């Protein structure tokens, strides 16, 4: 009797760990690089602002698959050889940084110049105004964008299939090739992605509600 997809479910599920590792490490690296980028772009001297804006633009113009290949296949040309998982994390993290920087910069700008003026007018320094007035509002404004970024990164970890990372999509394809049925394993893996994105959005929504302030996020108009 031929084995069916149900016998192979544990194989597919075993890939979830790597998928989550790639997602969390990728978003984390993106945050660690993206926030300083955003700061420098908002507060830095003019040449730094311009340089960072262009770095961001260029990175956002490159397909993730190309970044992945540059790091995994290209870096050995200059003597840097990374295993598949670190390669994937680095590629995902660099790209995510460019998006998170943009996201956070947008949130800072969304807070508005009037808030900065008011903060300065009571005698706060520029840094004090940023720390006590702009930042607490910007972080709240950025939450929905971050959730969105998380789900984008989660889905894009499937591209790591190209360099042989055994994440959940890779496992599903391998199972499909063994049982010679593509549809069922692919639907299973689709359901897994869907469940994670769905849960993450719900979770984030409750966090968002908890930190929301009337008139600032939480869906209410500014």
């Amino acid at each position, binding site marked *: 009797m031929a084995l069916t997809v149900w016998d192979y479910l544990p194989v597919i599920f075993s890939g979830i760990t790597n998928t989550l590792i790639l997602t969390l490490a990728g978003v984390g690296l993106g945050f660690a690089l993206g926030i300083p980028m955003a700061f420098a772009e908002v507060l830095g001297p003019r040449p730094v602002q311009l340089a960072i804006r262009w770095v961001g*633009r*260029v990175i*956002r*113009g*490159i*397909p*993730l*698959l*190309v970044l992945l*290949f*540059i790091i995994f*296949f*290209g*870096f*050995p*040309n*200059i003597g840097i050889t990374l295993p598949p998982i670190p390669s994937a994390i680095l590629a995902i993290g660099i790209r995510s940084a460019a*998006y998170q920087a*943009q*996201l956070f910069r*947008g*949130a800072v700008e969304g807070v508005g110049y009037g808030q900065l003026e008011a903060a300065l007018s009571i005698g706060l320094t520029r840094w004090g105004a940023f720390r006590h007035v702009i930042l607490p509002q910007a972080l709240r404004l950025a939450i929905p*964008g971050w959730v*969105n970024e998380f*789900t984008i990164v989660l*889905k*894009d970890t*499937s*591209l790591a*299939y*190209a360099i042989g990372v055994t994440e959940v*999509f890779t496992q*599903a*394809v391998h199972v*499909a090739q063994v049982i010679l*049925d*593509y*549809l069922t394993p*692919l*639907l299973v*893996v*689709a359901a897994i*992605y*869907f469940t994670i*994105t*769905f849960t993450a959005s719900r979770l984030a929504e409750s966090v968002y509600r908890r930190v929301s302030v009337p008139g600032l996020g939480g869906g209410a108009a500014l």
Partner: protein
Amino acid sequence: MIDDILYIVERYWPLLLEGLKNTIIITAASYSIGVALGLSLALLRSYGPKALAAAVTAYVEAFRGTPMLVQLFIVYYSLPAFGIVLDPLTAAIVAIGLNSGAYQSEYFRGALAAIPRGQWEAALSIGLRKWAAVRYVILPQAWRVALPALTNELIYLLKYSSIAYFVTVPELVFMGKYIGSRTYMYLQVYTVITVIYVTLALTISEGMSRLERRLSVPGVSITGRGQ
């Protein structure tokens, strides 16, 4: 490094050009499908009968909640079991187009919702019927509002057309891999390819922002979204 890059361009430019052609075909074709599908779905979801709207919602959530790569594999590898065999290029265009339709319907829906109620009331008050009001009053405003998101979507698709590599369409990434395997100069090849993608993306974004300026109407605000 510079010499290697020049060598690659000189030696392999016909392949790169062929790859670029396929990349552009996939992007343009799937984007067109996405616009048509997205607009129809948004109109159905906003103004159509309830049951249909629910079906559209399910479609949109399913496509947005799963990776494009999974969708591509379903189209290419599992449709043949149902007698639908698509060549790689067509499969890529269909899968990416269906995916983009889901996203674009959200952009259009947001834009439709952004048109103030008063516009509706005014349209109906002069005797326009529902669809005529949509056609002559709501849509002309809504698509201007949606334009920045639609620009982003085009750039997004340009980059995601690269997943056609997985089903062996000879687009840019595929050609890069091929040239790399022949020359072992992966970094150099992908540097060239990066330049091509970035140039295309910047050109699109410049062209579209010019279009936006030309089409902008005072008071019909165009508010970009974060990404």
